[in-house]
């Protein structure tokens, strides 16, 4: 699993990346009450707005951690947005993206680097 400074995670299988927000991000957001995930077919570039996650208090953008084409948004979050809090780095995933360039993945932080980054905040 790899991580961004915007607190998204990427897990790669073949050329399909599963992406979501980290446990740290979910904790910072608080109770998630609404999630808008991207539709299949949408092209995203790393850093683009990809999804929206909302707590009671506020709406936050979720950025695509990696470029490619969305193959699936996590429809289950529509009925159960709290999954983002319960299992942020598992069932609370946001989208699966068919990636264009594996080098983008390799350039992201590994868990140790991300943990160091969190310590620095």
């Amino acid at each position, binding site marked *: 699993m790899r991580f961004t400074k915007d607190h998204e995670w990427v897990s790669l299988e073949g050329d399909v990346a599963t992406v979501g927000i980290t446990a740290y991000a979910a904790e910072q957001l*608080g109770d998630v*009450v609404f999630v808008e995930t991207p539709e299949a077919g949408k092209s995203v570039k790393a850093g683009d707005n990809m999804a929206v996650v*909302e707590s*009671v208090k506020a*709406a936050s953008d979720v950025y695509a951690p990696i470029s490619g084409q969305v193959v699936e948004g996590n429809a289950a979050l529509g009925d159960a947005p709290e999954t983002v809090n319960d299992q942020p780095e598992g069932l609370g995933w946001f989208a699966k993206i068919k990636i264009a360039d594996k080098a983008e993945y390799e350039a992201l932080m590994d868990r140790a680097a991300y943990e160091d980054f969190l310590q620095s905040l």
Partner: protein
Amino acid sequence: MSDETLKTTPLYEAHVAAGARMVPFAGYSMPVQYKDGVLKEHLWCREHAGLFDVSHMGQARLRGVSPLSAFEEVTPGDFIGLKPGKQRYSVLLNKTGGIIDDLMAARPDDDGLFVVVNGACKDNDFKVIDNELAGQVKIERLENRALMALQGPEAAAVLAAHIPQATQMVFMDSKSLEGFGTDVILSRSGYTGEDGYEISVPASEATRVWNLLCEDERVRPIGLGARDSLRLEAGLPLYGHDVDESVSPIEADLAFSVSVKRREARDFPGAARIAKELAEGAPRKRVGLKVLEGAPAREGAEIADEGGAVVGVVTSGGFSPSLSSPIAMGFVPPALAAPGSKLKVIVRGKAQAAEVVKMPFVPHRYVRKL
């Protein structure tokens, strides 16, 4: 605003000790939430008792030969008729009938009028009152007092253990009394829609009183995040968001703050506009909206009619923890303001179905009779 310029309330250390996330609000570093988070804090207050630090709000005494009649020069309320021991909600009006701030004014004792105004507005409010009522009233700002609110269905039982006579008060009663071993200005009121109290104590006693109340297992501290979602469900407007200097009390659905006696006398700022709006209807109305699909519609979201024409704007909105659905309030033309009116809210370019509903969204539970 940088942290260095932020003020703190007397309860700052207590918030940090309780694990609060502190944010800038109205020039103060204030707790937006504690460890439980907004959702749980909100529901706790609806089921038990929540304790809020509202010491950023402006407390003052207005004294003079006849402070009650003087106060009628800047508000549309019947303050001459305000009986000892009672509190009244009112609005400070500008010359065109726009709302400078909303406030509580009370007679807890014989010492003039005790007023509580919004934190973000307090400097301007007291300047306006001082200018308009120069020579009639003298304002003493009570910056050496803290203010906390204890709200929820168990608030009365919790407070009764410390101040037995609190249970003898009803909604909007106000009383100076001895409690917690100090002098307290107590009112049975709040801004959550629940029964509860606002408790003013000397700043030096605030932490002790706060901790005493928190020792009760029915009480949890509640941050500004849940304070906002609670008042939204209660249909109560938030100054600077739902109400500002352009909005009249009639537009804001606060006509009850314009007393019948004063409507006839037309002797308050902006009376011409307000009388006209009372007679002919206001050009826009604050309404409650239930968002029937999709994402919460938040402040700034456009409101459209069924044909897609933009007719208004959301002034506050979010997710209602009690109803598990998005709710909002906003301004629409009177023709679309009746409960049941079908509207759209535009969120991130998408038109979502919404319906005008009667406020409050969640019933008030004020104790009006013993």
